[in-house]
């Protein structure tokens, strides 16, 4: 029993979620001590609200990275599908609820995701090349084909969805208030569904298996091509949902507003302990990593650090965070090697 417990503890100490969580807590405490403003209800609600869109993107990026791929096209994909949905609704002067915006955007997102999935899954092209290419294709369609421009007004359904809140938190001291958007529910539901999908369906285990060894997955009987295509379709839909939420919360549509987010999102996922080579990582770690990035981006101002320095700190966090986990892997390997030599000596 003792042995069992020991090996269990050993395994936990090798995971990096606990360390990451400590870093997160440390950062929160630091900001709180320096500003006294961090652990206020309205600030926490603000952070939760700021997590929604990056969080959704991160879920999609996480699935792709687990499968051994990488996707840099999701901001362009989300922009194109939400732009399509918004212009269609505006052109028919649609007065109904936000659901139709979601339906159209998700349908377009599924189509664009299938485009990625087809080239990556069926034609076996490298995911980075394909998504770099499709980023340009999607942006080109939006800017050239659809002649996109900034839309100052969005359909009433989306406007209403963006302003409706679950509850409002009020800081009793400063009197500041913050709303918790309804969209948080969308994020929470997607998070739970993807968690269940990855953990309790053979499809989800297939994604992990493909990330571990594609050849083995094929031999074991997974339909690798189908799994990949369906996964990219899902990722396209998740990204499109994030796009609709983003536009609704901003109350207007900047076609290029989301472009360039991909690196920060992927950095958050990797920071959360997801192996960039695929197969390893947990959704919990991925969320902690994303939260870290969101907090750094949003709370630097509370530390009295000018916003112009923000990207320096985000960059440093990424290097330190991913560097530490990479070192961990290296030292684990060398320890094993040492042990091997050592036990060999004893045997001899």
């Amino acid at each position: 029993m003792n042995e069992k417990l020991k090996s269990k503890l050993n395994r936990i100490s090798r995971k990096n979620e606990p360390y990451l969580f400590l870093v997160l807590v440390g950062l929160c405490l630091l900001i709180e001590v320096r500003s006294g403003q961090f652990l206020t209800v309205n600030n926490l609600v603000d952070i939760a609200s700021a997590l929604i869109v990056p969080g959704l993107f991160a879920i999609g990026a996480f699935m792709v990275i687990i499968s051994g791929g990488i996707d840099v096209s999701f901001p362009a994909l989300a922009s194109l599908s939400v732009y399509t949905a918004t212009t269609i609704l505006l052109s028919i002067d649609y007065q109904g609820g936000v659901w139709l915006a979601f339906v159209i955007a998700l349908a377009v997102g599924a189509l664009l995701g299938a485009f990625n999935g087809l080239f990556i899954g069926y034609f076996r092209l490298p995911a980075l090349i394909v998504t770099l290419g499709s980023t340009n294709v999607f942006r080109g369609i939006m800017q050239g084909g659809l002649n996109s421009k900034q839309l100052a007004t969005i359909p009433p359904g989306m406007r209403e969805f963006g302003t409706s809140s679950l509850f409002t938190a009020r800081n009793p001291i400063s009197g500041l208030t913050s709303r918790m958007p309804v969209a948080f529910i969308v994020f929470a539901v997607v998070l739970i569904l993807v968690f269940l999908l990855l953990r309790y369906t053979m499809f989800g285990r297939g994604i992990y298996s493909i990330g571990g060894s594609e050849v083995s997955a094929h031999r074991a009987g997974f339909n690798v091509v189908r799994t990949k295509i369906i996964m990219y379709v899902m990722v396209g839909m998740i990204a499109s949902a994030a796009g609709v939420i983003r536009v609704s919360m901003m109350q207007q549509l900047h076609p290029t507003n989301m472009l360039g987010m991909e690196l920060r999102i992927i950095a958050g996922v990797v920071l959360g302990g997801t192996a960039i080579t695929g197969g390893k990582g947990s959704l919990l770690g991925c969320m902690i990593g994303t939260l870290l990035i969101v907090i750094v981006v949003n709370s630097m101002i509370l530390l009295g650090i000018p916003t112009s320095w923000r990207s320096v700190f985000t960059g440093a966090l990424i290097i330190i965070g991913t560097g530490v986990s990479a070192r961990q892997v290296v030292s684990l390997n060398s320890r094993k090697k040492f042990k091997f030599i050592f036990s060999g000596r004893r045997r001899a």
Partner: protein
Amino acid sequence: MAESLLKVIDVYKSFVGVQALKNVTFTIQPGEIHCLAGENGSGKSTLIKIISGVYTPDAGHMELNGTLYKKITPIEAINNGVQVIYQDFSVFPNLTVMENLAVNSELSEHRKFVNWKRMRLIAQEAVKKIDFEVDLDEIVGSLSVAQKQMVAISRSLLFNTKLIIMDEPTTALTKKEVHNLFEIILKLKERGISILFVSHKLNEMYEISENFTILRSGQVVATGSTSQLDRKKFSFFMTGREFTERHFKAESISAEPIFEARNVGIENSFSDVSFTLRQGEIIGVTGLLDSGRTELALSLFGIQQIDSGHFFVHGKPAVIDSPKAAMAHNIGFVPEDRLSEGLFLPQSIADNVVISEIDRLTRRAGLVDKEKRSNEIVKWVKELAIATPNPDNACHTLSGGNQQRVVLAKWLACNLEILVLNGPTVGVDIGSKHDIHGILQSLAKAGLGLIIISDDLPEVLENCSRVLVMKAGKIAADLDTGKTNESAILSYMM
């Protein structure tokens, strides 16, 4: 006699004009351990893939459990109890042992959802089949090679398995692990499971299999009982060439040693190792995997640094603390894993040959002299008979034996006096092995001093004039190969 489990009859298969299999016929009885041997490219892998349903034969048919199949699908093969254990074991290094064990059978039952409790039960059932003790929650990537293989074997037993095809299962195992594997194979045999054991090592064939089939250029050249096979016949069947063993006799040995190690050691690896090497000599260093022989080899080329004792080159003390320092003393090194350590596989053969002497092929401005370079390349490709239509082809287009020759060419091109070879013929087929031995012997005759680190005892006996046997980090014996034999060396090793 009971009905055959598997009959392969008159099977043909070709790929874009290349005849991979020609008229192949052989049978396996229930509970038989059958060895399939052949050089690289002889058609072994193609045959395995036809039996397991990955490829469809162009002509011929198979009989499995008495049913005739013109062609078979992978699912039909599995349903007939055929399981293949590939060289890479087809495991998922990122998942737990439990999931690795259970996932195949869950997929074959078309499960859509995961029940972790059921997975655990399946995994427990699997490991029980061969009494394999392992922590089911461990990540497979952190297991040893042998343990991964056990995962693959126990996983394959979850089906109604009648035939297990093992593709070169002993390649990455230590002697002890091979022994364990053979015990498990014998246990499986007792249960009536047949094993098709793919190998090109004669001693393994002797030890484990009752019958053998040898393929050469896609054809069955011999089949029968293993007991009627000897080393000479085996080599002939494998290569189609007759080999006369050429025992190395050192000629024209220099009076003074060109290299000497005096009481050298590395803490926790080896200690107090002393020997001398003369011009024209080949000395062998052998020992078990953890005897310190690998570390000694690496220290001779400065990859690992000695922390006690001294090296001498031509009688003068020499500090060898880096490969560059070793090369300055005209010492060359051919690493054990030539594929990952010795060659730039995607680069051309030509570039690989000249890489170590590139400094001597430049003009004054530091640019490479094209003419000198191509002269060198032509010379070495010819001298070592590297089989390539064009030296500008990438190195990975060559067979294992030819790649080994490129490594040799690379070092010879820099005017060496001492060449250290770590496992020079690991993973090389018999024909190439013979050729490499020939090259090594002629190098010694040309005046080099060679040190061969190898656990292949026939190789050491055939090619070395002396052999140092290492045990637990010390030299246990320094033997004259003319006056010793395999069992004597083994007794010093153990």
